[in-house]
């Protein structure tokens, strides 16, 4: 997806809404009492604020379990991301809801069911931000060995494949409610997933009908999946990071070029640029806000960081949106930076017709410009279900 192909009016803005903000000292500058950040009112208010500001998607980080010996701090206490997304689903209408869900220490069958359920409660606005944890603390929590990078890659690819297969195991019209024959289901339109991986196998079918979107959009960090997996359609969007905003544009171009080489034409995943932001706010310059925060805790982040005025950020985003389908913003302090974004940045980008309309009831796939495919098993044209021959008892 090169800059010249990017039509005006298609840019997407995503916002990460975890906790008080991306900066580990954000809680000290928050308008919300720390204890209230883990409550329903704060969650509802921030997501509604992001929706009315015109953001296309909210992401919900699941972050890391604190490593051994660490005392929980701001960044450590977290509500489960997928449930936060589910909680706000009935309260919102246009914003896509994209929780981060781990693939290494989780059960792929549960992950698939939970995400499909999120798609139902959000009426087609769910997505999956793939995480592959290598954390020792998370491994110890479930009594397993920490995963090295090769295993993380393998586990992420396997979990995505399980999810995609399970979402297809019910064809769209499997529920027939045929009173004449007494059948609620047409069994010929149900299929086993029969996933066999190096670490485990999953039988299927899913225990929930096909999600409203069919397969949910899958977002992965660049570098997590091997090129073959991306070429095989594992991800719908790739999150691209670079150390600085200048390098980000170059990184986007490089990533687009390598995806274009590896993927069949027209099947490249969308690119989403990752950007930390600190804006002038509350009568204080961005630089001095950041200095105050940094004096309390160091913000370690693999992402490019923008520190400046709303007008400067608008220019940067306008440029990035010519290279990427979207940008995901990580505000240093949600309360402070979201307000500036809503009042100054998004209205200007809209005025310049750089943003896709945030349409009520549009699905996340529609926002991403993705068609809704029929089930892979239906496309095969035959009943590929194989039934176990043996009826041996449980």
């Amino acid at each position, binding site marked *: 997806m090169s800059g010249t192909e990017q039509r005006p009016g298609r840019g997407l803005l995503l916002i990460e809404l975890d906790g008080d903000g991306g900066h580990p000292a954000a809680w000290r500058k*928050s308008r919300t*009492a*720390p*204890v209230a950040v*883990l*409550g*329903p009112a704060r969650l*509802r208010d921030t997501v509604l604020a992001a929706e009315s500001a015109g953001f296309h998607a909210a992401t919900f980080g699941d972050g890391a379990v*604190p490593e*051994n010996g660490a*005392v*929980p*701090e*701001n960044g*450590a*206490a*977290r509500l489960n991301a*997928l*449930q*936060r997304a*589910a*909680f*706000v*689903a*009935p*309260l919102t209408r246009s914003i896509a809801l994209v929780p981060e869900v781990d693939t290494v*220490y*989780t*059960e*792929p*069958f*549960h992950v698939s069911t*939970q995400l*499909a*359920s*999120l798609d*139902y*409660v959000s*009426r087609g606005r769910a997505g999956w931000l793939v995480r592959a944890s290598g954390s020792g603390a998370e491994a*110890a*929590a*479930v*009594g397993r060995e920490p995963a090295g990078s090769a295993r993380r890659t393998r586990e992420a690819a396997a979990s995505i494949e399980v999810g995609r297969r399970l979402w297809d195991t*019910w064809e769209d019209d499997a529920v027939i*409610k045929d009173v004449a024959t*007494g*059948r*609620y289901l*047409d069994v010929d339109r*149900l299929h086993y997933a029969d996933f066999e991986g190096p*670490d485990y*196998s999953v039988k299927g*079918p*899913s*225990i*929930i009908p096909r999600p409203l979107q069919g397969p949910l959009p899958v977002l992965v960090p660049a570098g997590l999946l091997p090129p073959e997996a991306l070429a095989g359609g594992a991800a719908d969007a790739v999150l691209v990071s670079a150390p600085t905003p200048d390098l980000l544009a170059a990184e986007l171009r490089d990533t687009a070029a390598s995806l274009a080489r590896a993927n069949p034409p027209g099947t490249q995943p969308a690119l989403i640029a990752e950007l930390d932001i600190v804006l002038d706010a509350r009568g204080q310059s961005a630089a001095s806000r950041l200095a105050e925060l940094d004096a309390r805790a160091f913000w370690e982040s693999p992402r490019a960081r923008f520190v400046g005025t709303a007008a400067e950020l608008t220019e940067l985003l306008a440029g990035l949106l010519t290279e990427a389908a979207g940008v995901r913003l990580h505000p240093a302090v949600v309360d402070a930076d979201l307000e500036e974004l809503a009042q100054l940045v998004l209205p200007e980008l809209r005025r310049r017709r750089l943003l896709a309309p945030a349409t009520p009831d549009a699905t996340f796939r529609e926002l991403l410009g993705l068609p809704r495919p029929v089930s892979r098993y239906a496309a095969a044209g035959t009943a590929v279900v194989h039934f176990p*021959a043996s*009826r041996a*008892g*449980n």
Partner: protein
Amino acid sequence: MTEANIDGGFRPSGQLQLGVFFQGVNSGTVWKAPESGSQTDFESFRRIAQTAERGLFAAFFLGEGLRLREHLGRPHALDVAGRPDAQTMLAALASVTSHIGLVATQNTTYNDPADLAHRLSTLDLLSGGRAAWNVVTTDNAWTGANFRRGGYLDHADRYIHAEAFVETAKRIWDAWDDGVIAASPSEEAWAKPASIRRARHEGQHYSVDYLPRLPRSAQYRPVLFQAGDSPDGRDFAARQADVIFSAHPKFDDALEFRRDIVARSLKAGRGANDVKIMPASEFILAATPQEAREKKAWVRSLQIGPQQAIAYLEQFWGRELQDYDPDGPLPEIDPVVEETSETRGSGFHGAKARQLADQWRAEANEKGLSIRQFVSSKTSRGDATFNGSYTEVADRLVEYARTGAVDGFNISPWLIPTGLDDIVNHLVPELQERGIYPTEYAGTTLRENLGLATPLRPAAGVADNGVAVGGRHA
């Protein structure tokens, strides 16, 4: 009715509570009626939950089955199938309800304690203290085929595993002292150090070493329900559960079950009133007794159609019986299997098939029942059904409240999404008039609304509550 003294210091509350169980996986939910709605749309769930809340129900339940039911080796086609993940749906319902408890049935065999406890804590915090976990232990290799964990546990091991699991979860929920998190951004530290403990378990089935990530909720921790009826299951409930989701709604049976649970609770060192009981039940009601009887016949005809009747027998015969007339006698041919393999995922256990077939044929002959009539009598939830006019049924329920045979009922509506309307509009006011049903929510948390005591807090500042449970199973 038997005179109902339950000793052991048990005191009936004189009150009943209601819960609603959305969609079991069985023939109970009628999908063939014109008014049958979607089983998956969020609006169906919202409608039932909000109606229940209007009727001051204590709890909204979701069941769980981790593999799609199968019949003769193929997915079972005749009943409602496919349902959302319980906690995901309940998290969504938390934002459109304010008082009703949100109960997730979750399995101990195919989950990790740290992950499950964390998700339940999330639901508890997002709902303002209304979450509960219905602990089930269902497992078999057939369900295990969907999981990384795979495999299964011996029946005998299930509750040992479940108990270690639940104790680990409780330790996770106990790990944060009250008021750990800073009350304002100007405090020096986000959390008070040394007031959060690691939770550890080292046992035969799994190990956990975890620093819990969430504080206590408004009700301290999620309420625990238990469903499982074996002696081991009952003892487990008596030791660990707040409420039993029982299978004993019929009055005499309910009283007997109450006595049994009181005895087991006392033996476990708990009080006679500590474990509440809410049996599964079905209500088919109308304005007059006559109408209610007609309605019941209509509901039954929709629940057990000719195909369901034949399929029911096929589970026991282990062969196709499509050529038999549903309105004729039971099949003369014998089952082809030794052990019955009932529709997988229905929660039944195997029995001797030939013996059962002989017994059933004799029974049907004697009563002059056709296949359809016979199956209907076997599956009618007969014991679990309250059928009659609103006043009749309300009168009958007075006896349950007076004796304390149960603390309430978990109602499975036979119709989605309107199946609670008549109960809330007509039965609830009758119960209130008789003084056996709340006229308002007692509080905002599920624990308050069920009248449960807050768990005893562990001593503040204890450094590490270690591996207490693991030793027993290592």
